[in-house]
């Protein structure tokens, strides 16, 4: 009988700090898609309420402890960091997405400048405040982006594209650092 060792999406990837920004690979976590069936909003809300999570409005995410509910589409959210409560079944299609996504945390004072090199959406704090979460491309990749702090975001992409995401972000940091160097 085999012993199956789980491998993290970012196994072996070290963090990078450059241009005043920190790029950190995130550990895999439970991710469940919760997609409401027509008319399922009320029932799903009742099941989620004890967790302290309301179903998020479009482009928002909510959290309670380690559990988050992140809007990802029409009547759809990702439950991250928690297992789905029993009882959702009739109200929503619940689908395991754990391990299918790879996330990074990017933070620091140059955050908006870094993101503006890859994401065609205004992610300055005024336009993308705390509590915001969007579906948007990171260059050519589909992503879920969450504002996690005044100068911090998380970016999640398909796991198979993790290397490309890292490469593109690292390149942005290199270039920002070179730009800073000639200013000084």
């Amino acid at each position, binding site marked *: 009988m085999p012993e*199956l060792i789980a*491998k993290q999406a970012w196994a072996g990837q070290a963090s990078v700090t450059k241009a005043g920004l920190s790029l950190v690979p995130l550990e895999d976590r439970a991710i469940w898609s919760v997609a409401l069936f027509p008319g399922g909003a009320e029932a799903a809300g009742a099941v989620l309420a004890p967790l302290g999570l309301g179903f998020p409005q479009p482009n928002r995410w909510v959290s309670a402890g380690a559990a988050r509910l992140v809007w990802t589409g029409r009547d759809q959210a990702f439950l991250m960091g928690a297992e789905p409560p029993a009882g959702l079944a009739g109200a929503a*299609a619940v*689908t395991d997405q754990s391990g299918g996504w790879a996330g990074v945390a990017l933070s620091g004072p140059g955050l908006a400048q870094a993101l503006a*090199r890859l994401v065609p959406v*205004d992610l*300055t704090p005024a336009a993308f405040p705390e509590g915001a979460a969007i579906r948007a491309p990171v260059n050519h990749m589909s992503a879920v982006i969450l504002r996690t702090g005044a100068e911090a975001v998380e970016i999640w992409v398909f796991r198979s594209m993790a290397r490309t995401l890292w490469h593109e972000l690292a390149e942005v940091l290199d270039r920002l650092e070179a730009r800073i160097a000639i200013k000084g």
Partner: protein
Amino acid sequence: MRVEGKGIIDRSHPLRFTFDGKSYGGYRGDTLASALLANDVRLMGRSFKYHRPRGPLTAGSEEPNALVEIHGKTNQTPNVRATMLEVFDGLDVRSQNRMGTLKYDLLEVNDLLAPFLSAGFYYKTFMWPRAFWERVYEPVIRRAAGLGSLSGKHDEGVYEKAWAWCDLLVIGAGPTGLMAALTAARAGAQVILADENPLLGGRLVGDGGTLGGEPAAIWVAGVEAELRSMPNVRVMTRTTVTGAYDNGTFGALERVGLHRPARPNLPRECFWRIVAKRAVLGAGALERPIAFPDNDRPGILLTSAVRTYLNRFGVVPGRRVTIFDGSEAGRVLARELMAAGVQVAAIIDPRAEASGLEDCPVHLGAQVVGSRGRLGLRAITVRKGAETFEIETDCLAMSGGWNPSLHLTCHMNGRPRWSEDIMAFVPMEGAVPGLTAAGAAAGRFSTHAALGDGKAAATAALKDLGMAVPDLPLPAAEDAPYEPRALWDVGGEGRAWIDFANDVTTKDVRLAAKENYTSVEHMKRYTTQGMAPDQGKSSNVAALAVLADATGRSIADTGITTFRPPFVPVSIASMGAGGRGAGFAPQRFLTSDQASRDRGAPMIEAGLWYRPSYFPKPGETGWKEACDREVGWVRTAVGVADVSTLGKIDIQGRDAARFLDFVYTNTFSTLPVGRVRYGLMLREDGMVLDDGTTARLGENHFLMTTTTAAAGLVMRHLDFVHQAFCADWDLRFLSVTESWAQFAVAGPMARALLNATLDAPLGDLPFMGVTTVRVGGVEARLFRISFSGEEGYELAVPTRYGEALFRDLVGRAETMGGGPYGMEALNVLRIEKGFITHAEIHGRVTAFDIGMEKMVSAKKDCIGKAAAQRPGLTGPERQQLVGLKTHAPLTAGAHLFRPGAVVEPATDEGYVTSVCWSPTLNCWLALAFLADGRARHGEQIRLVDHLRDIDVTCEVTGPVFLDPDGGRMRA
């Protein structure tokens, strides 16, 4: 020559650069043009067609003449404007478009041949003998044409693209732009101020006047300091806004690292996409030259350019200056030059009455009608009434008036309007929604008007956005009325240049008119006026005026050609930043990627994924040997392949089965839980979209698989059908491709391998069954499906266990006389079984063509059913899927003919889609489409591949070569 006490170059930073191998000195803040002029070098280039000696005409990005090549360690950059290139230590610049040296260019012979090289001459000759065009004429023309050279080596430079958002984009940082930016900035708006120069100020820098009673530079510095201190303002220097696009999107090019030696990771350029709620175009205006014979010599510049060289760079392009200008601006320049100690030999003013000037002869009612000096101006000829005389001069400043820089207002098809008041085109209002032209760009030329206009434009924009705007006082500024000039062409016999860059003269325009190329577009295309690197910035109006004159129309009736993006040329590398190397599309890697690479497998691209082609063994000579071995493993023992790239869509809801019945041709509502069914999906036009298996995991829960290539396409299609036709159904679906790693285990020993792997022995899982199993304690899904024709399974585990499971399965397979197999073997296995891929379902085939018309249920509607019944898709002329078999090598892409038939289009009966050598059947196999093919099994057919010189006869068979009854799969 350099003038002491003038200019805002940094004299504390001297530097050295080379031009054509010779070393020169300059200062930080110099452009190549200013530094060379300071060194008394006026000759900087050769013209496009006649190879005339040329020096700078302007001091800006509109420069038509002084184009040079920059040579770096690994590359070279052609067609760089000497007027925009900031010099730095070690800069290596060379002149271009010459055969020989810049001074002795052999192609100057073209200038002597000019009578035979008039507009459009090439349309009238080089036609005989016919074969000479590609062999003789064209190569000669091509070699003579062109300007600078690319190196032919990969551009290894670093480039960048970025986005920016703002309430107000201010284009140009002259008086208009500064005032607009300041107004908006103080209102608290998000402001971007972009200017293509390294310094803010625009003409305030070049003209060096006063503002609010102080030197303009002080006012500029004050505004700049304030803007730079504000968090809501981004000042972007060296940034040219290049294009206006829909819904407030602008393109802009930032020259990030071009003004300094290269540095690792530092972008050379950055292409910006700026999204602005409102924009102010404060791009100023461009001065026009005057057409007179031989007006293109080095040393002949625009008045504003001479002024800029003097005030910004402390340089005069000569020692004895003359001025050909019908406005007070000429007087101002003369005074400035004389104040700086430069001799002004004369002012030639075409007006009959105008002011004089102390210490300087002014020739009223006079025109410059000629010039002399082979490599640079030595004298001009002046005509005054009946009298002509020569004046010795090495620098002529000329001005034919000004054109508003309205180019961006044309990018969305805006048509400029001719204004008789200023004898120039002015922007059409509202041509770019949200953008307002202001100041000189709108045809209001005085500094006072520019400041007021900038403020007003910003105020209006901010009010639109609902923002409160402070009332800023305007600094006192010059407010002289503009003196419109309409002297385009002094006439005369010689060649008078209009379009310096493309060597178009007034004669060319008149010839075009004579030959009835009288539409402005015809004239432009026939003469090539306006199609050179400067896009006709300085030639456009003069050309129209000459055409208007030649055709007896007004300029307004003659019209104007359209300015297209970009405003200044933009490198392909900057707009294509990120495409180099592997950046064109994301790379997708399997969980087994490293394990496959560890085994030496070459990886090939498939639908953005990288998949192993084959797994080589020591001693094997190539892919074919490995492939045959891997096929053998699957046929006789067991093989393992990663099939995770197949699209997987999780479908749930009470209406899930109903939905599948609608999108598939066959029925899924009757599929029992725990079973899998092959499904065929059509486009609405009746052609096959994709195929795959769908498993029923629960009463209201299905898992659909798609091909790798069509995964995204199918998802989009399902989303459309769902949202457009049944959004209210109890149905949700989602891609789970990334959540599962899935491995095919196939071969007679597949079950044995699984029994050794799974936590509990595999019970009686029927063919086309699905069940939940555990492996290493992990819950997994096991499908009994086969793409090889052998007893086959696909085992799926959560992605994080993929690599471990792959290594384990492969290890176990190897102990059983099998191992991993790659794409090559997978392809052979499926051809032997007659399974189709997108080589067969290439978008032009119906279910009927591939012999699956029985899978189109008669009992229900489905997507594509109606259109598939069109007569042209069901007739006997349709080509049907068949197999071909022979012992000689076959090639995909070959065509099929009846043996003995003449090979011609009319006898072409089909083509081959897939071929392989079958190690199982010891022959070559092919899948092909053949007219009426199903009725022709057993016939001989001739296969012709002209490209690879193959001509063989094959036997037509059914597409399933191996085990047509499927006994092995069901074993």
